[in-house]
């Protein structure tokens, strides 16, 4: 059973540069949430703040009665055992082979026998499809394999919260689809709370229960997937549909002239909302709501053609 993460009024700046301010959101226990945002809006910084690698200027992060933002170093190391983190490039220890990398947390934190460690490590390696590569060094394998190995290491202590930094960067679409499926299956299996930071629109549209969007030094919106996918809010609609029309420009934000010129242009219609990705064994997701349920309860009409099976997934294409 996963753990709820409650973030209140979190603010972080480097020197005089504000990264984001007053971020308030709750990652519901056991659900998959995705954090989106244009490049350079501090998504990775947000992730690192959640695990206490960076101290926020203000605000609180409540996890099981601990406040990550203010607690002592000693307490921090305790709370961190609830976390599994997958870094962008896997962050494998270069001097150890994959087996030792995955076994590392077990050897450091538990008094298990080597045979027991072997059983657990092999189980996790099989989960991510790395059987046969145990003796390879991280330098000898592809980026996708390093990511999966990092995932195996993050899973080895049975985390309650999984933080994943850009699982799809540098991965081909097929591997991305596989790794997304893996997240859904894992979520159904271990019931942990997931937070995935990504740029990939397909991932963001089909994978999560909740979506958040960081933009212009604040959290533009956070909420259930259907809420953001049916939102007419220009920033959200623009980003989730990968369009040029909208407030996000090539540089961090568009200048006033460009925005004024565009204000008369109507946003293109929203594409249909795709169905959620389901676990591969046909079970429903742990916190699954019927498709379109949120829209019905909140009186929002989803774009026509939403929730149809076998939908063509082309972000940005006209509906």
């Amino acid at each position, binding site marked *: 059973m996963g753990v709820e993460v409650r973030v209140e009024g979190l603010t972080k700046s480097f020197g005089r540069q504000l990264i984001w301010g007053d971020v308030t959101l709750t990652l519901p226990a056991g659900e998959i949430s995705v954090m989106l945002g244009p490049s350079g809006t501090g998504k990775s910084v947000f992730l690192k703040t959640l695990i206490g690698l960076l101290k926020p200027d203000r605000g609180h992060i409540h996890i099981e009665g601990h406040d990550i933002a203010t607690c002592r170093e000693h307490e921090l*190391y305790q709370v*961190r055992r609830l*976390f599994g983190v997958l*870094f962008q490039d896997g*962050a*494998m220890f*270069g001097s150890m082979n994959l087996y030792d990398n995955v076994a590392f947390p077990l050897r450091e934190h538990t008094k298990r026998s080597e045979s027991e460690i072997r059983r657990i490590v092999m189980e996790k390696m099989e989960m991510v499809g790395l059987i046969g590569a145990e003796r390879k060094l991280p330098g000898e394998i592809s980026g996708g394999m390093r990511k999966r190995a990092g995932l195996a290491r993050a899973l080895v202590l049975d985390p309650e919260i999984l933080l994943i930094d850009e699982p799809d960067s540098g991965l081909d679409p097929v591997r991305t689809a596989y790794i997304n499926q893996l997240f859904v299956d894992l979520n159904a299996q271990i019931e942990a709370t997931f937070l995935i930071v990504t740029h990939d629109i397909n991932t963001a549209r089909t994978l999560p229960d909740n979506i958040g969007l960081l933009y212009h030094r604040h959290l533009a919106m956070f909420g259930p997937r259907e809420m953001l996918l049916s939102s007419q809010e220009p920033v959200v609609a623009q980003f989730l549909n990968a369009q040029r029309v909208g407030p996000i420009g090539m540089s961090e934000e568009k200048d006033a002239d460009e925005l004024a010129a565009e204000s008369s242009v109507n946003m293109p219609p929203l594409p249909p909302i795709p169905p959620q990705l389901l676990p591969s064994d046909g079970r429903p997701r742990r916190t699954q709501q019927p498709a379109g349920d949120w829209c019905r309860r909140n009186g929002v009409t989803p774009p026509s053609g939403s929730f149809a099976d076998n939908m063509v997934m082309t972000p940005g294409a006209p509906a």
Partner: protein
Amino acid sequence: MSVNTVTKPLATTGRLFAFGLDVFFALFRRPFQVREFVQQAWFIASVTIVPTALVAIPFGAVIALQVGGLISQFGAQSFVGSAAVLAVIREAGPIATALLIAGAGGSAIAADLGARKIREELDAMQVLGIDPIQRLVVPRVLAAMVVAVFLNGLVSVVGVMGGYFFNVVLQDGTPGAYLASFTALAQLPDLWQGMAKALVFGMIAAIVASYKGMNAGGGPKGVGDAVNESVVITFLLLFVVNFVMSAIYFQLVPPKGA
């Protein structure tokens, strides 16, 4: 001059000391990483032994040449040996050790930790609930200290042998006089202070290198900068500390025959 140019180096100095304190406290935290310590000691020794020996020979030789020439002018050839031993054991040994432990050992530590830092390995380690200072830095600091003491011994032996060779073979000194005057000026505390210096040098070099490596930033270039800075800072610190320790030593231990 803005306030920043004054406070920035001060802040860095403060953080370096804070880091040193962290390392000190982590020293007593169990479990002690025996394996990492042995590996690092072996590694640091392997990158420093040969260069140290090669540096020690000309060091001993140049002292023999300088001191030998000077002493001959005074007409005290029989004391050439004792002067060479004194110079090598008191100063040349610790200085050569400092150069090598900072230049070869320290740069290797900074490069290693810097690479781990930018590959996010150190972050990953912290997230896995392991303190990199206890797991990686403490074994390196202890290893550098131990190896520095041994290097000091190596420099002393090789330096004295180098001095002997140059004095006896090239300057036509007499072996008997060289050996007989060995203990005329040098005394046992000279050896102890050399070892104490080496111990402190090893500690400073490893702490500075670890600090710089763990705070490397900005990609591969950041690692290069960290290595460069760590070597320069260590050199500066070691030469200052060497002077201070020598001055204290002369106050505590009177020269022989004085």
